[in-house]
Every structure is written in structure tokens, then in C-alpha cells.
């Protein structure tokens, strides 16, 4: 471009051109990618000590502190929220929007433009072409030609002029818009993310069994955030893989209470949250909480089949129905293990293998004592044929809930949907155009000219055209 032409451009034109350039896109792509790499090396929002250690590993002990100070002042410790990373994202969005606006109108015009018949002399200049001669008059071929075109999937328009008939049709023109749908979807996702950041809430709530809360706590600073309703944890339970301490599933039974009424009751587990009033409660963790008021729930069953549910605490007693056998809970372990010599110990505080020790007496006479393990029903049978089932130790665990409100998430999902459709049409829908001319050839014959173009997946379209040719030659 020469100078005289450039000087005629206004400032706004220049800014526009700057943003519409694909070169800028390449620069922003690289900037985002390269700075992101740094963000994966330095742990984001991590402890200072930890990151200092990482830098020491990379640069040595003498350089690490000053590098740490510099990176900290540039916001690298929380870089995805730093002003300059936001600036990259804004530039990225502006570039994407303006690039699309710049190119979309022409593309739209091209897509909307109806296909026109092709002048006969141009048939030879197309990449996909064919010529067939058939010894039948054109008038006798018209219908079968129309059908053959239909058979390969085109609904052709038809125009007749000076004894020449032309069929023409196009398919998949919208595929050319797929790339713009993809661009739009990225903008929607970013917009949804921005809404989420400004109007959303991200917090947690550790709720012990039996407790109710009207607030959740923010991830940033832990301030209480009123929910506008209460949430109660009725019960919490962990299911383990057989003979392993690896949790298979953990579940909370929750109740939503508003204005004193229970409005929702739901069991949640990992991958299946509870939603209410714009908030979503995810099962994210659990833990144990020492609680002197914890309740052991047992089921005592006599040899003759009489049953009784027992709710009691540590040092509580119960009798097996229909007998004089009395049990007293003398000890509890959240995770019981046996040593080789038969003595017991507690191997963690996480309720991985809860057990209670019960001493049994018969009319005051001491019988025996032993451990009942919640996860191992074979420990529930007593020597006389009676049975005590250890159902739950309630009130000693809390459920860890992730609480989130994100009014932008639907936009993100919509963006994902449009992106899928956009990518599909951009990569897998090809824009096919076909023209077929039928003209007389000699006295009693006809000539069929075929021309076609396609913007991708040419091989399969060529096979289609071959099919058309073979249908026509067979009929002749």
C-alpha cells in the first residue's frame, strides 16, 4: 500500500484494520499461550513458600527470591485474574469480533446468493466435470435425468432455453458459516464467564449430620453469604469398595427449608448435585467431627427373629429383645485395624472403618465382649445365634459441599452447543454445487454435460458424480 492511500485513512479505519488483521490474532494466540505456560509452572493462588521452592528448583537459591518478587508484582501468582491477562482476553475478543464482522457480510452474501445456471461454454472449466453421449432424444431423457439427480440427493431447479435444458442445484452452503458460528460461540462463552465472575458466588459449606445452615462461606476470605433459605444435612454416608478403603460413592441426604417449610429433599453424590434458588450444591468432600452427642444406630435381632432399633451413645446400653442379654457400648474407633497379635488400633480419623466394642452380660453375669465393624457384617453375629447390626454412627461426620451460583453458566452451555454445531458444519459439511445440461447431439442423440464444485471432501463428491454418470449410462 502506498503512502498517499494510507494517509486518506482515518484513525478509526486504522484501529479497525489493526483489529481485523489475522496477524494480530496470531500475536494474541501466542501471548495467551506463552503466558499461560508460566501460569502452569507457578502454582496459582498457592502458598508463597511452595512457589519459592519451585523457583529455587528452576533458577537456584540465589536468584529465586528476586524472581519471586518480580513475578509477584506482575501478578504471576494469580495471573489468570491479573489486569494484563484480562487485557489479552479483551484483545482476543475484540480481534475475534472485528475479524468476523469484517468477513461475515461477504460470506453471508455468497451463502444467500441463489445458484444461477451455468453458460454452456463454462462447463469445461470446472474441476469436476463429465460429458456423456446417449443415443436418445433429449425430450426422452429429461425425466430420467431429473430422477437421477434426485437419486444422488439434489433437488434441482430446471431451466430450458433453445432446446437445452439445464438442471442446477447446491447443498450445504450454510457450512461456510460454521466458522463464524464457532467464533460467536467463543464470544458467548467468554461473556458467560464474565457474568459468572461478576454476579456469581463460589463458596463452600461443611455441614455436619443433623445441622442446618442459612449461609455458605465464600472461597475468597471465607465470609458468610446468606442463601435466602436453609439447607439441612439429614444424613451422610460413604460406601467403600469391598475390602478396600477406597470410597466407591459418598452421598448426602439434604433438605431445603424455606419459610419453615421443606421445599426440596434430595440425595446428592459426586457428579449429581442439588439445585435450588439459583444455587447448586455439589458433593465435594467429607470429614469427621468429634461429637459427644453422636448416636450409634444398631439393630438388635434375637435368635427367634424379634427385632429392635437401638439409638444410643457411648457407654449406652440395650437388651436383645426377648432375652436377658444386655450389651454396653464401651469403645468406639473410626477406623479399626487389628495387629498380628490380635490387639487393635485406630489407623485414621476419617471413619474409614467404624467399629464399636460391646460388652455383653446375661442377668448381670459377664459373657464376652468384642468389636462390631460397620463394613463387615460377619462381625455382627453373636455366639448364641443372636445378632447386632451396626447400621450407622450418626452425627459424627460432616458433608463438604461446594456451593455455587453462576448466572452466566447457561450462556457457557449455549456457547458449547453452538460451538459443536459450528465446528461440525465448518469441518464436515461441504458446500456442493452441481450443474447438468442436456442438449441435442446430432439428429437423434443427446449430450449431457456435468460440472460441479465442492469446497471440501472432494473424493466423496466425485464418487457421487460417478454414480450419477453410471445411472445415466445404464438407462441409455
Amino acid at each position, binding site marked *: 500500500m502506498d503512502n498517499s492511500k494510507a494517509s486518506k485513512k482515518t484513525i478509526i479505519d486504522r484501529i479497525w484494520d489493526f483489529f481485523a488483521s*489475522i496477524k494480530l*490474532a*496470531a500475536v494474541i*494466540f501466542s501471548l*495467551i*499461550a506463552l503466558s*499461560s*505456560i508460566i*501460569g*502452569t*509452572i507457578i*502454582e*496459582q493462588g*498457592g502458598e508463597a513458600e*511452595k512457589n519459592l*521452592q*519451585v523457583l529455587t*528448583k*528452576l533458577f537456584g537459591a540465589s536468584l529465586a527470591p528476586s524472581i519471586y518478587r518480580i513475578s509477584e508484582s506482575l501478578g504471576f501468582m494469580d495471573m*489468570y485474574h491479573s489486569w494484563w491477562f484480562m487485557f489479552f482476553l479483551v484483545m482476543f475478543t475484540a480481534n475475534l469480533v472485528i475479524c468476523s464482522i469484517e468477513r461475515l457480510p461477504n460470506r453471508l452474501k455468497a451463502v444467500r446468493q441463489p445458484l444461477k445456471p451455468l453458460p454452456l461454454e463454462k462447463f469445461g472449466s470446472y474441476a469436476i466435470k463429465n460429458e456423456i453421449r446417449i443415443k436418445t432424444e433429449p425430450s426422452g431423457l429429461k425425466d430420467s435425468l431429473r430422477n437421477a439427480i434426485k437419486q444422488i440427493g439434489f433437488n434441482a431447479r430446471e431451466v430450458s432455453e433453445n432446446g437445452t435444458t439445464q438442471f442446477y442445484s447446491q447443498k450445504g452452503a450454510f457450512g461456510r458459516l460454521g466458522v463464524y458460528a464457532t467464533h460467536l460461540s467463543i464470544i458467548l462463552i467468554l461473556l458467560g*464467564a464474565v457474568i459468572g465472575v461478576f454476579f456469581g458466588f*463460589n463458596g463452600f459449606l461443611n455441614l455436619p449430620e443433623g445441622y442446618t445452615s442459612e449461609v455458605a462461606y465464600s472461597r475468597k476470605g471465607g465470609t458468610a453469604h446468606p442463601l435466602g433459605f436453609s439447607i439441612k444435612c439429614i444424613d451422610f454416608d460413604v460406601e467403600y*469398595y*469391598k475390602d*478396600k478403603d*477406597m*470410597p*466407591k*460413592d*459418598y452421598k448426602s441426604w439434604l433438605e431445603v427449608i424455606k419459610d419453615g417449610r421443606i421445599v426440596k429433599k434430595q440425595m446428592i*453424590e*459426586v*457428579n*449429581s*448435585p442439588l439445585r435450588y434458588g439459583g444455587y*447448586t450444591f*455439589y*458433593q*465435594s468432600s467429607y470429614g469427621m467431627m468429634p461429637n459427644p452427642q453422636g448416636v450409634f444406630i444398631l439393630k438388635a435381632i434375637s435368635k427367634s427373629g424379634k427385632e429392635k432399633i437401638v439409638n444410643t451413645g457411648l457407654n449406652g446400653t440395650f437388651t436383645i429383645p426377648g432375652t436377658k442379654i444386655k450389651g454396653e457400648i464401651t469403645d468406639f474407633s473410626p477406623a479399626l485395624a487389628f495387629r498380628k497379635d490380635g490387639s487393635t488400633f485406630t489407623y485414621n480419623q476419617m471413619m474409614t472403618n467404624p467399629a464399636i466394642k460391646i460388652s455383653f452380660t446375661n442377668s448381670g453375669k459377664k459373657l464376652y465382649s468384642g468389636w462390631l465393624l460397620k463394613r463387615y457384617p460377619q462381625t455382627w453375629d453373636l455366639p448364641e445365634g443372636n445378632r447386632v447390626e451396626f447400621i450407622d454412627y450418626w452425627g459424627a461426620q460432616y458433608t463438604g459441599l*461446594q*456451593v*455455587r451460583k453462576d448466572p452466566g*453458566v447457561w450462556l*457457557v*452451555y449455549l456457547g*458449547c452447543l453452538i*460451538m*459443536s454445531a459450528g*465446528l*461440525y458444519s*465448518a*469441518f*464436515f459439511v461441504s458446500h456442493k454445487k452441481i450443474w447438468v445440461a442436456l442438449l441435442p447431439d446430432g439428429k437423434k442423440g443427446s449430450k449431457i454435460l456435468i460440472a460441479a464444485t465442492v469446497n*471440501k471432501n472432494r473424493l466423496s463428491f466425485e464418487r457421487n458424480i460417478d454414480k450419477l454418470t453410471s445411472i445415466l449410462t445404464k438407462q441409455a
Partner: protein
Amino acid sequence: MGSSEFYGIATLGYITAMIVYITYLVVKIEGIGKFATSITVLSFVSQTIAFMLRWVEAVQAGSRSLWRPPISDLYESIIFFVWCLILGYLIIEFKYKNRSLGAFVTPIAGLALAFIEMSGMSKSIEPLVPALQSNWLLAHVTMSFVAYSTFALSFATGLMYLIVNTGKKTEPAYIFWTVTLSILVVLLVAMGIDFLSFRVMASSQQEFIKSYLLKASFANPSTGIAVLSWVIAIGFTLIVWNYGYALKKILLSFNLTPGILDEITYKAIAIGFPVFTLGGLIFGAIWADQAWGVYWSWDPKETWTLITWFCYAFYLHARFMRGWRGNKVAIAAVLGFVAVIFTYLGVNLLLSGLHSYGEM
């Protein structure tokens, strides 16, 4: 026979196929090429059987439900990657009737399998923690690995493109491919030495459990051996750089034109990119949203997935908008797969190593 025996046969088969394909490339005897294809097909069948058996074994052991195919831990996913890669390769070999590509694709499979052996990762069937029991995750993992394998194919063809399309030793693209190819070969050989010195000769169980990746060469406790390894590696790179044109002659004799290679590279990425976007990014985000309540949290894995996505988005835009056909886009395709490897392995090995207090 159980799944591990069939996996063993497949691993041995792929590594043999790799050697035979490379031999075929050098001696160009049609029979050897057919032999290479037969070994590959047989190994593929064996691997497919192993996959089915492992699925059945996991269900019978009670540690997985019927709807969880064995693609959920590191070991299973790398195996699945190799399976997809070989399937993709066999399709291309069949379509383009050209076996020379095998000499470039099978080493990638070989590297992946050697990595499994060397890194000491667990091969046992582990039960799934609750967060992993999700259909979104299943779709996410499956599609990611389908995409990764198409990217691996585009890496191979991209590299071959550079080989046939460069000539001058001072050309940046020439230097780029010679260095990349050398790294690939050096890594493969180093892992082979690891295998021989540790798998075959290691005596104590302790050594098996500890990772011995590159411990026989670059990461050797003895400084002398480590330095020697570097010297040999650099020397090898220089040799490749000096005699690289010979490889170009060989490839050209197989009728591999830059046009065909560019086409395969593009087609692989054109399939991989949408699958990767949908499966890797979108399904991953949906799963994270369901499991953790955050669809995007800038954790290293997510960020590297995004970086990979940018690489291939760059490739596509460069090819279409700027009309780059040639060395530049081929380099982008090669670098894209480097980003893929880092997303999958580097994040787990290097970054988690950095973030932990102990040594890797």
C-alpha cells in the same frame, strides 16, 4: 490367557513392526512391507482382545461397572491411544496404499509403550473414585484420545512433509525436522536401554517400583554416563542433520509427494480438532461443572489443553486465512503434537513434580 498376556503380545508385536517398517523403508523389499503390515494387524487384533478381556476382568473383579470400558487411568488411556493410532494408521495405509508412513507412526506407538514399561506406572485394575464415575468423563477421555491419535498421525506426516520439502542444511525447517527426528530416535533408544538395563537385569523389587525413566542414560546417577549420553545425543543429531537428505531420497522413492503429505496432515487435524474441541474441552468442562461445580479453573491440565487447542487453531487459521501451505504449517502441526504430549504426560510428570516437595 488373560488381558495382560494379550497386551504383552501386542506390545512385542508393535515394537517388532516398528523395526520391520524401518527396515522396509531402507531396503524397500515389498515382502518385508507386507510382513510389517501383517504383524501390525495381528498385534492390533491381540490388543483388541486384550481390551475386551480387561473390561470383563474389571467387571468380574467387582471394581468397575459394566458401563466403564477400561480407559480410565493413565495406563489404560495410553494403551487406548496406541490402539486408536494404529487403527488410524492402518486406515491410511489402506487408503493411500503406502507403507512408508509406518516407519514414522509405529515409533510413536513404540515410544508410548516403552514409556508405560519405563515409568513404572501401575497396570493393575483399580476401582474408580466417585468423581471418575461419570459418563461425561467417559466421553471426554474417549474423544480426547481419538483426537490425540489423529494429532499423532499429523505429527508423523508433518515431519515427513518437512523431510521431503526441505533441502538446504541451513534452512530453519530442515534444522527443525532433523532436531525433532533426532529427539524422537534418541528418546526411543534411551528407553530401549532403560528397558534392557532395568527390566532385564534389575534384581530387587524396589527398582521395579521406582520409576527408571531415562535412568540408564540422561538421568544416570553417574555424571560420566549422563554427560556421555548428552554427547552421543548431540553427535547423533549432527549426523542426522548432515545426512538428512538421504531420508528425503528414500521417501521420494515411495512416491510421497509434499502434496499428499500435506493433505493427510490436514485431514487428520480436520478430524482431530473438532473431536478434541468437543470431547477434550467441552465435555471436560461439563464434567468438571458436574463434579466440582467449576467448568473452568485454569488448572495446569486445563491450561495446557487450551494451549494445544490454540496451536491447532493457529494451524487451521494459518492454512486457510493466510494461505500458508508448506513448511510453516507443517512445523505448526509438529509443534501441536509436542503440546499434546506435554498436556498428557508433561503436566503429570514435570509440573506435579515441581509442585511436590519431594523429588520426582
